[in-house]
């Protein structure tokens, strides 16, 4: 077939016949990888589901101690970053190099903001001694729906363990995403991406959106349990 036609694009790897095949393979590969990621978080969601079912009141008490405003703000930040990602891709498709670079920078700034807010949240939890471990303390915190009853600190500790593992893994994914986007920014700066070829941008974007989706679920599940008055 078109095996000998790499006259225009040095990015076409030798074992692919056409650019379309290469691009489709790359994005398909990313989707498959995201399937893996879903199951990776899935194990945690399974653990979460079971303990939330068992210890609903305690989870509510623990959840209420987290600053939901910060979590909500972080959700908004991530949603904005997802928008800037699609705009960056759109800019690449329409040969707007400056816009593309601007959007990539903005995406990374949003990502950093997210991690910053996350850091504030973690610091709060640390001060309140809500980090599981030897210094953990959650004494005499009433259960929201049964205010005359205190939450069981051991069960609250399970909540916080899940909270830290889930948000921590999510933050790790954000950090990896920032790494990917630094590389994309560098490549965009070098002028690697054209309307014909911007596959890395697309699959990097897929990853970023996936991380956003995980957060879309983490936010209500971790921050908004049993919050009503």
């Amino acid at each position, binding site marked *: 077939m078109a095996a000998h036609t790499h006259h225009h694009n040095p990015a076409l790897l030798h074992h692919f016949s056409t650019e379309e095949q290469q691009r489709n393979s790359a994005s398909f590969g990313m989707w498959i990888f995201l399937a893996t990621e879903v199951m990776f978080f899935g194990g945690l969601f399974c653990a979460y589901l079971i303990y939330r079912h068992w210890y609903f009141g305690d989870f509510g008490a623990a959840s209420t101690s987290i600053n939901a405003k910060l979590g909500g703000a972080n959700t908004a930040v991530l949603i904005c970053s997802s928008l800037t990602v699609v705009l960056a891709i759109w800019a690449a498709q329409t040969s707007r190099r400056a816009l593309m670079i601007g959007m990539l920078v903005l995406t990374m700034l949003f990502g950093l903001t997210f991690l910053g807010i996350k850091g504030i949240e973690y610091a709060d939890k640390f001060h309140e001694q809500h980090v599981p471990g030897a210094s953990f303390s959650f004494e005499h915190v009433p259960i929201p729906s049964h205010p005359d009853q205190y939450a069981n600190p051991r069960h609250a500790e399970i909540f916080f363990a899940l909270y830290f593992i889930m948000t921590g893994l999510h933050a790790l994914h954000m950090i990896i995403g920032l790494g990917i986007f630094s590389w994309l920014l560098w490549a965009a700066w070098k002028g690697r991406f054209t309307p014909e070829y911007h596959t890395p941008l697309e699959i990097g*974007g897929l990853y970023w959106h996936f991380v956003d989706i995980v957060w879309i679920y983490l*936010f*209500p599940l971790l921050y908004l349990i049993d919050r009503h*008055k």
Partner: protein
Amino acid sequence: MSGHSTSEHAKSPLTTYFAVWGALLLGTWLTYEASLLDLGRYNAAVALIIATTKALLVTLFFMHLKGASEKLLKLVVASTIFFLILLLALSMFDYGTRSFS
């Protein structure tokens, strides 16, 4: 992807992107407000429905699943969700029925 987005719909994706962005922000606000209402056991359901809607919006429009020419990607997404639900549902089935008998 490259070919058709440049020529055919040069404008239309932007409106979609901003509309989806707006819907996602709205959804975030809705989740937060809904959590303050006392809906009993439906609080969780409402939260999950909103979250799933948001996730769908991201997947369909930002990740371009809607425009994907092949059914393959949709199959990947559907089967992943299927296996995830399997993991959650079959485990929960054990926990849910332990106190019987």
